[in-house]
């Protein structure tokens, strides 16, 4: 089947129109003298509509749309659920912790900054460092997705594509930071969600409607036709569940929106973003299911080509433009959030708390934030032009964040956790993770059994933390223990055969056990009310005015 293309003038028109409109929107909120704190938190009083749209837009990135369709194509009807549902739940599960974090530090800028107030420098820098790495990789991944899309749908080259995308995003984010990011997110989410609502039914009907399922069932294996596919669960769903809390806790982009939204609007914002993300990503995943039923072979054998290939095969020029805007919107909204997150970390965590030590110059702080955006864009462009396998690195960062989850959450609730307990537990979790993930240690014999027992404990830690957030300590502890014991009989002799999953579970288990072990004996109890005093605003200009 011939692939529809957009042509150079139309592609350039769409790109310039998209980035031109977002730039004009950011100009409308531009201030001659930007406030350094507002640049990072948008004033802590953003309403439900803007916040929910921004949260949804930030979490839907081009790679998640492609990966959901790949999951549908690979694992069949349950594939998109095992991708989109867990991805959506990661937003929901941070909600109770988010409320706690906001109540402890209403004027904070980053999670790492709160850890500085709670523990000290080493804990702060561990989290800030992982955030920087994660955001840089995410930024690169979005540039690659944009370049690949432009190269596939137009005569423009990949390099030209990433350059236009990177310049466009930097242009509208540079001046107003998070304020520009969340306001333009609304327009981008309208484009994305509107496109999904139109394109999925359009491809379904143009490809043959109900006849796709009448004639195409022979293309699916029994596993692919099942909603309860164990193949889909163990290869896609289970590793994702392990990553759910890690991404939510470790990623600064979601924390930044948590600090931006009005405190009484946190709950509806998170619930709406959960449903919005889930429906959108699973919806696009249905394109992969359709491709599987139709019997389409991915171009060049690369499943990442599946979504644009399906669009170019069945959509006319008009709908192809809508599809193009959907993907550009998804990658731009996440990339501007990454730029904004990176600038906040450099402004608050590196300069504000470590270099200036409470005597920050707001003007210099803003300059550092803007310079960070420019440098980060340059680094991401370099990575993108070399086409590293960013997705694998990103999955790795997600797993590294697994070692941070328990110590971070425990630090916000348990007054016995110390800086040493935090740092040692995270480093222990990481050491075990790397040893297993990269097979420095062969899991055989007694070591395999020990690993399976610990990995089962990791399942208990994840289940316990999720329940703890919503139902408190007793339910969390009970569910954690029950989950670990329930998994144990099935896990022993089995879990270590999935090294990616096992490495993540071990990171959770080891960091939790070490953190608890080192904290239990601590008699010097922390006073949580001091966090609020240590995380105030840097820039008093607007307050004085």
């Amino acid at each position, binding site marked *: 089947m011939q692939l529809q293309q957009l042509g150079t003038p139309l592609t350039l028109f769409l790109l310039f129109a998209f980035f031109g409109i977002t730039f004009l929107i950011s100009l409308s909120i531009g201030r001659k003298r930007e406030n350094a704190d507002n640049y990072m938190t948008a004033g802590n009083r*953003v309403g439900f509509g803007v916040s929910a749209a921004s949260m949804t837009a930030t979490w839907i990135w081009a790679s998640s749309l492609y990966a959901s369709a790949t999951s549908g194509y690979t694992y069949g*009807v349950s594939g998109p659920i095992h991708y989109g549902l867990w991805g959506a739940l990661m937003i929901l599960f941070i909600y109770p912790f988010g409320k706690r974090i906001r109540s402890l530090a209403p004027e904070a800028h980053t999670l790492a900054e709160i850890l500085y107030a709670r523990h000290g420098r080493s804990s702060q820098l561990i989290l800030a460092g992982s955030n920087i790495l994660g955001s840089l990789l995410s930024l690169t991944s979005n540039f690659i997705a944009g370049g690949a899309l432009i190269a596939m749908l137009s005569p423009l080259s990949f390099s030209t594509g990433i350059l236009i995308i990177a310049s466009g995003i930097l242009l509208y984010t540079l001046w107003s930071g998070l304020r520009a990011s969340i306001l333009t997110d609304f327009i981008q*989410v*309208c484009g994305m969600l509107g496109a999904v609502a139109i394109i999925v039914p359009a491809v379904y009907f143009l490809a043959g409607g109900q006849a796709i399922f009448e004639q195409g069932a022979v293309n699916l294996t029994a596993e692919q036709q099942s909603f309860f596919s164990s193949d889909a669960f163990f290869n896609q769903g289970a590793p994702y569940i392990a990553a759910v809390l890690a991404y939510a806790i470790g990623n600064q982009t979601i924390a930044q929106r948590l600090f931006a939204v009005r405190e009484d609007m946190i709950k509806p914002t998170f619930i709406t973003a959960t*449903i919005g993300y889930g429906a*959108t990503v699973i919806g696009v995943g249905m394109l992969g299911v359709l491709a599987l039923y139709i019997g389409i072979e991915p171009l060049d054998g690369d499943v990442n080509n599946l979504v644009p290939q399906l669009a170019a095969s069945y959509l006319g020029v008009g709908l192809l433009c809508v599809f193009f805007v959907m993907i550009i919107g998804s990658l731009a909204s996440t990339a501007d959030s990454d730029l904004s997150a990176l600038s906040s970390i450099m402004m608050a965590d590196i300069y504000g708390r470590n270099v200036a030590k409470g005597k920050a110059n707001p003007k210099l702080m803003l300059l550092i934030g803007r310079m960070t955006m420019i440098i980060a864009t340059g680094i991401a462009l370099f990575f993108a032009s070399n086409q590293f396998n960013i997705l694998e690195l990103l999955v790795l960062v997600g797993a590294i964040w697994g070692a941070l989850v328990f110590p971070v959450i425990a630090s916000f609730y348990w007054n016995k956790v110390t800086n040493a307990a935090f740092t040692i537990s995270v480093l222990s979790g990481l050491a075990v993770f790397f040893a297993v993930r990269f097979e420095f240690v062969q899991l055989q014999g007694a070591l395999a059994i020990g690993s399976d027992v610990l990995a089962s404990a990791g399942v208990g830690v994840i289940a316990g933390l999720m329940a703890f957030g919503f139902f408190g300590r007793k339910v969390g502890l009970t569910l954690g223990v029950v989950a670990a014991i329930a998994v144990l009989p099935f896990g022993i002799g089995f879990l270590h055969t999935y090294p990616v999953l096992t490495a993540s579970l071990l990171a959770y288990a080891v960091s939790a056990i070490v953190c608890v072990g080192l904290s239990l004996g601590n008699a010097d109890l922390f006073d949580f009310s001091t966090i609020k005093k240590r995380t105030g605003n840097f820039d008093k200009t607007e307050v004085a005015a």
Partner: protein
Amino acid sequence: MSPSFMSFYVLMWPAAVAAILFVLVRAFGGEWKKARRLGRSLV
């Protein structure tokens, strides 16, 4: 699974997306009007 069930399964997601989009646009519209009335910026 019947073809009609599969059709419903595929099409229910874009329908849910449209509903969420409606909620977001309505909320944004209200906030925009309020901000204009009070002479404040949305963000």
